């Protein structure tokens, strides 16, 4: 029993150390940045006495270590400080903005998996054939073009050209502010409120950004699925499965894929973390009120508390995902003790 506890404590320790390292680096970057945080608070025209008062209030004049220590001790009590721009506590900002990014990233991951994994399987089974080449070219193209180009192209074709999707933004203007925010996930909240009109409106607004993010992250999933499947299909047990008279597809899906599914867990965890980052640019083009846009705005204006807070949250999500992937790996893969 204590081996399990020991290994759990070790992982927990490593997670804490990672988060600590993350906070130190982000905090230092914040303080080292040549942007005077007071500028965002009082503006360039403010007289010297107002500037001095603001600096004192933000504690910018104390030595760096003191600033860091007071910041971290607050963080441990859940107070990530206040954002200069929104004047809200960073925690409430993150709680407000994170669901929008989460909703987009999760749906994108879902679609990227539903399309990426089968594509990987097919191109592995038909290795070297034309289908294999086409699938790989299409998927890799998604990853070879910057997201913002994909986003603008998507808007040009589907929004302006074909009028198939609504424009940037998370909701139609009519529904703005109409859906009471329970979970912050628009789809869920609109269903909870029983407002089908708002639900479909949210779906339409989600379509293009989600498809683009999904397409962008499909390349990695497809490539990894293909590599794992190629490896599994070389296994001897495939021959014994065929020798049992199983059909081609039931061999692939029944025997090769279960081996691969386990390994895909880590790939999906990495992709999901990457998606949270990919959202940063997609949100600017699609005017999506998510964490990515909140972070870039704060960074551009030298508003450091949100930058450190958000980076910690994204870092924590990333570390959490890795931890989850490890645990799932142990649970689902019988080979691991």
């Amino acid at each position: 029993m204590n081996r399990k506890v020991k290994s759990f404590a070790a992982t927990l320790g490593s997670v804490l150390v990672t988060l600590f390292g993350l906070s130190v680096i982000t905090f230092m970057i914040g303080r080292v940045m040549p942007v005077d945080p007071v500028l965002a608070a009082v503006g360039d025209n403010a007289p010297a006495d107002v500037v001095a008062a603001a600096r004192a209030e933000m504690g910018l004049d104390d030595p760096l270590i003191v600033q860091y220590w007071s910041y971290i001790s607050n963080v441990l009590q859940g107070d990530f400080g206040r954002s200069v721009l929104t004047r809200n506590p960073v925690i409430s900002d993150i709680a407000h903005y994170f669901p929008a990014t989460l909703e987009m990233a999760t749906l994108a991951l879902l679609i990227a998996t539903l399309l990426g994994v089968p594509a990987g399987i097919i191109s592995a089974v038909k290795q070297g054939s034309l289908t294999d080449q086409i699938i790989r070219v299409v998927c890799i193209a998604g990853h070879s073009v910057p997201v913002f180009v994909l986003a603008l192209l998507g808007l040009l074709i589907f929004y302006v050209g074909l009028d198939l999707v609504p424009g940037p933004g998370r909701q139609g203007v009519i529904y703005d502010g109409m859906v009471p925010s329970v979970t912050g996930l628009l789809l869920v909240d609109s269903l909870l409120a029983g407002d089908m009109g708002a639900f479909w409106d949210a779906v339409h607004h989600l379509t293009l950004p989600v498809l683009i993010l999904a397409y962008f992250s499909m390349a990695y999933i497809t490539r990894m699925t293909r590599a794992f499947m190629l490896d599994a299909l070389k296994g001897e047990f495939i021959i014994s499965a065929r020798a049992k008279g199983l059909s081609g597809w039931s061999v692939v899906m029944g025997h090769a894929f279960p081996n691969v599914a386990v390994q895909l867990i880590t790939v999906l965890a990495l992709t999901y973390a990457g998606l949270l980052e990919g959202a940063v640019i997609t949100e600017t083009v699609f005017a999506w009120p998510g964490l990515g846009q909140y972070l870039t705005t704060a960074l551009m204006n030298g508003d450091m508390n949100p930058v450190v807070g958000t980076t910690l949250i994204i870092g924590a999500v990333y570390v959490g995902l890795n931890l989850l992937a490890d645990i799932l790996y142990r649970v689902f893969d019988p080979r691991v003790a």
Partner: protein
Amino acid sequence: MITRRNFLASTAAAIPAVSYLSMAQQAFADTPKNLLVVAQQLDNMTTLDPHVSFEATGSEIIGNMYQQLVSPNPENPDVVDADVAESWEASDDDKMFTFKIRDGIKFSSGNELTAEDAAWSLRRTVKLNKSPAFIISQFGFTPENVDEMIQATDPRTLVIKTAEPTSIGFLVYCLSANIGCVADKQTVMANEVDGDMGSAWLDKNSAGSATFMLNTWRPSDAVVLTVNPHAGYEGPIERVMLRHIVDPASQMLMLTKGDIDIARNLTAEQLESVKSDDSIKLLRKQQASIMQLSMNVSHDKLSDPKVWEAVKWAIDYQGIKDNILGDTYEVHQSFVPNGLPGALNDTIFTQDIDKAKSLLAEAGYPDGFEIELDHYSAQPYPDIAQAVQANLAEVGIKAKLISGENRQVLTKMRARQHQMIISAWGTDYFDPNANADPYIINKDNSDDATSKPFVWRSHFQDDELIAMAEDARDEKDPAARIEKYLELQKKFVHASPFAIMFQKTATVAMRDNIDGVILAPLPSNNSYEEVTKT
């Protein structure tokens, strides 16, 4: 709060709950008739409290929610119109000013607007002492003496006493800024939290008497204004929604598609291409924001006035305006922006390479010198910087470009570490002194001076100019005051290390069925209250 049912009932397009496909065929309906949708960059706005806000975006919204004591006349900059104050007069010794408050104005909460609200509002600005407070506290008010200096003698009369004799024209111009907004004392003080005079609450709420009041503000997402029921407004608009769309390309697409009525941040090129689209029309107004190349006088190569003059003759103002800036900027070479009283609008400098070269030779740099030129990384600054770099190269000055995020460049300038720098300056209130003061008055040029105005950053101190600026500011007679400012500017353009180049023009692109948008030199006077959607 408007419930969704009755809101939808009043709009023509009731959206049935249908499956995805049929929704796709039906083109996404233009926005409803009683809703005005504006796409705008709302990300640099920290507060909606009229007595604290200093950013352009914020002050525009505040202008739509609060009424000021007086407001500048949109057509004639030398005239100030009555607003909350019907009339005003100065005492003989020019140290006491009495304002008559108009009757029958109601706040959005329903409370009557009285002189006490006006007095309290001005006192609040001075006591909070945030960024814009200097506009009013420059008349000698301090948190300690302001209660005694500004009083409401009766519900209809507001009396302001100043320490020194002051020109009523100058005082009234200052009161036309947002610090002159009258807020509902009763509602605000009811939300006071440990002595902050309700500033935490007023950041995100409104207590004004103008046409609109604040419904919601989701930072970096949207600002929704609804009609103030007590403002006696009969127009068609029930709701104004400002949507935060950062990317101009997205704003452009949504405007052409009709999903938004107004786009506020289109680029020069986009405005050019929109001219051919007759479903969109443009409204332009010169803004009180100027762009200049400042030279740090403490730098050895930039200490000689001849070098300043040479740089001013080297720049191809018209070429840059025509080829890069289009209609988004006009050439303007003096510190009082066009549209403000006392503005000097003539073009003194045009590109003259030989003159610039001879001036450089006189200054001892026949074959020029190397210098660093800082500029913002946001467009159009990089394009302008590259064009100026090419101009300077023609006269031998080899400029190395260093671009940086806006606040990063400002931080470098405020720390006096720049050599040459292209930056912008927004005017704070509707008076020539609003720019004369920061561009000239630099009493203490030492590094640890108490007040560090814009001019201080470039180490420039000219006692003669300073005297002229203060004299013009205190001139009592309005006409003579304007004359003195023109004199000051004529001298300034040659005698200062600032090559003022352009004045920003704001362009609002809107659907052709939109009318009545009011655009003013200062954002606090922009207004949607007369907008109609046919």
